[in-house]
C-alpha cells in the first residue's frame, strides 16, 4: 500500500516536471494536428499575422535589394551591356515566336483542332519563408477563398516554375519550392528531349537525376517540365544545366541545374487554378 502511494507521488512529480509537461503538450498537439483538428486555430493565426508579415517581408526585400545594389554597383556597367545584348537577342526570338504562334493557330483552325486552354492564374504575394534550415517553402497571402487548392502549380512571370502548393488555409497557402529536398518534378532537356527527374540539392541548386547513360548532355542547356505524371504542366522553365556529373559505373547520369528563378528576390507568384 505504502509502495503504491510512493509510486503515485513519484509518477505525479515526473508528470508535472516542466520538461515532461512540455513534451506531453507538444505530443498532444501533434496528435490533434494529425487528426486535422488544428486547422481552425491555424487559419485564425495566419489571418492575424499575415498583414504584419507581408509588411515586414516587403521591407526586408527592399533592404536586401538595396544592399545587393550597393555591393554590385561596380559590375553594373558590364551587366548592363550584357543585358542589352540579351534583350536584342530575346526581342528577335519573341518576334520569331509570335510568327510561329500565328502559324500554329492558323494550322490548328484549318485542321479543326481546339486552341490550347488558357490557364486561370491567381496573383499572390509572398509573406514569409520557412524558418527551419531543412526545408524550403514560402507562405503566400492567397488561400482557399481565392480558389487555391492543394497540389496547384506555382509559377512566376515568364512561365518559370516556382513550386507546388502543399497546404491551403483560408487566406494563405504554403508552397514547396522546387529546391526543397522533398520536391520532385518530371523534367526534360529542351534541346535533346532527354527526360529526367528534378530534385532539390543540398545547396541552392537543383539536381537533374535519372538521365539515360551514354547520352551527350551539354552545359547551359535549358530544362523544362516534361508534364509526365500530370502533376506539372509541360513546358514550364526550370533552369539551365551548370555541370554534368557522369560516371561509367552508374546506370544513369546527373546534372547540376541552376534554377531560373532567384528565390531570394521573389515577391509575387502566380498560382495556376
Amino acid at each position, binding site marked *: 500500500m505504502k509502495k503504491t502511494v510512493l509510486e503515485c507521488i513519484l509518477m505525479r512529480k515526473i508528470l508535472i516536471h516542466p520538461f515532461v509537461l*512540455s513534451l506531453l503538450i507538444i*505530443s498532444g498537439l501533434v496528435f490533434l494536428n494529425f487528426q486535422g483538428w488544428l486547422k481552425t486555430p491555424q487559419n485564425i493565426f495566419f489571418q492575424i499575422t499575415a498583414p504584419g508579415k507581408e509588411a515586414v517581408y516587403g521591407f526586408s526585400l527592399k533592404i536586401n535589394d538595396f544592399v545587393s545594389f550597393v555591393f554590385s554597383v561596380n559590375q553594373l556597367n558590364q551587366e548592363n551591356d550584357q543585358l542589352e545584348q540579351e534583350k536584342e537577342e530575346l526581342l528577335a526570338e519573341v518576334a520569331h515566336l509570335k510568327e510561329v504562334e500565328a502559324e500554329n493557330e492558323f494550322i490548328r483552325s484549318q485542321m479543326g483542332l481546339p486552341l490550347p486552354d488558357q490557364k486561370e492564374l491567381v496573383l499572390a504575394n509572398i*509573406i514569409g519563408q520557412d524558418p527551419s*534550415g531543412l526545408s524550403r*517553402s514560402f507562405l503566400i497571402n492567397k488561400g482557399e477563398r481565392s480558389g487555391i487548392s492543394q497540389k496547384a502549380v506555382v509559377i512566376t512571370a515568364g512561365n518559370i516554375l516556382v513550386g507546388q502548393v502543399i497546404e491551403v488555409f483560408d487566406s494563405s497557402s504554403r508552397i514547396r519550392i522546387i529546391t526543397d529536398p522533398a520536391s520532385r518534378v518530371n523534367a526534360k532537356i529542351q534541346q535533346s528531349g532527354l527526360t529526367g527527374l528534378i530534385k532539390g540539392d543540398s545547396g541552392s541548386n537543383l539536381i537533374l537525376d535519372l538521365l539515360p547513360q551514354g547520352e551527350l548532355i551539354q552545359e547551359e542547356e535549358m530544362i523544362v517540365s516534361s508534364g509526365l505524371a500530370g502533376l506539372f504542366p509541360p513546358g514550364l522553365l526550370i533552369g539551365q544545366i551548370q555541370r554534368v556529373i557522369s560516371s561509367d559505373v552508374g546506370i544513369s547520369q546527373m546534372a547540376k541545374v541552376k534554377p531560373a528563378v532567384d528565390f531570394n528576390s521573389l515577391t509575387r507568384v502566380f498560382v495556376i487554378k
Partner: protein
Amino acid sequence: MKTFFIVLSFILAIILQTSSIPFLTISKISPDLVLVLILLLVILKKFEKVWWIVVIVSLLLDLFSSLPFGLISFSLVITVYLIGLFNRNMFSAVKFWITMVLVVLATLTYNLVLIILSQLFILVKISPPVSYFCGLSLNCWLDFMLSLAVATIYNLLMAAILFYGVKKIFHQE
C-alpha cells in the same frame, strides 16, 4: 511588465525569423534568431520558469514551417532543456564567453536532434519519407558539416550582438 517585454521580443523574433532572416542566407544557412533568444532566456532564467514561453514560441515556429508539425518544437525544447541543465551543473555565473560556448553546443545539439527526430517521424509515419539525413554519401556529409559550421558561426555572431541587450531585458531581479 518583464514578461510582456519577453513575449514581445519573441513575437518580433518569430516575424523576423520567417520574413527578414532568410535573406541573410549563406549556402542555404541563415542565423537562428529564435534559437539564440530562447537559449539566452533559459541561461538567464531557469527552464522551469520559462518553459511555457519555450513551448509557445516553438509551436509558433512549427506553424510557419513546412516540416512535419512538432519537429521544431520537440527539437527546441529538448535542446534548450539539455543546454540549460548543462549550464546549471557546470557554470555558476552568466558570463559572455560561457554563453558563447553554450550557443555553439546548442546549435550542434539542435541540428543533431532535428535530424534524429526527422528520421523518427518518418519511422512512425508522422511525416512522408523525405530524408534530410545524408546516409552514406560523403559529399552530402561534407556539405552538412560545412552548413553546421556556418550555422554555428552565424548563431555565435547573433548571440554576441544580442547578449548584453537581452541580458538587460531577460535577467532576473
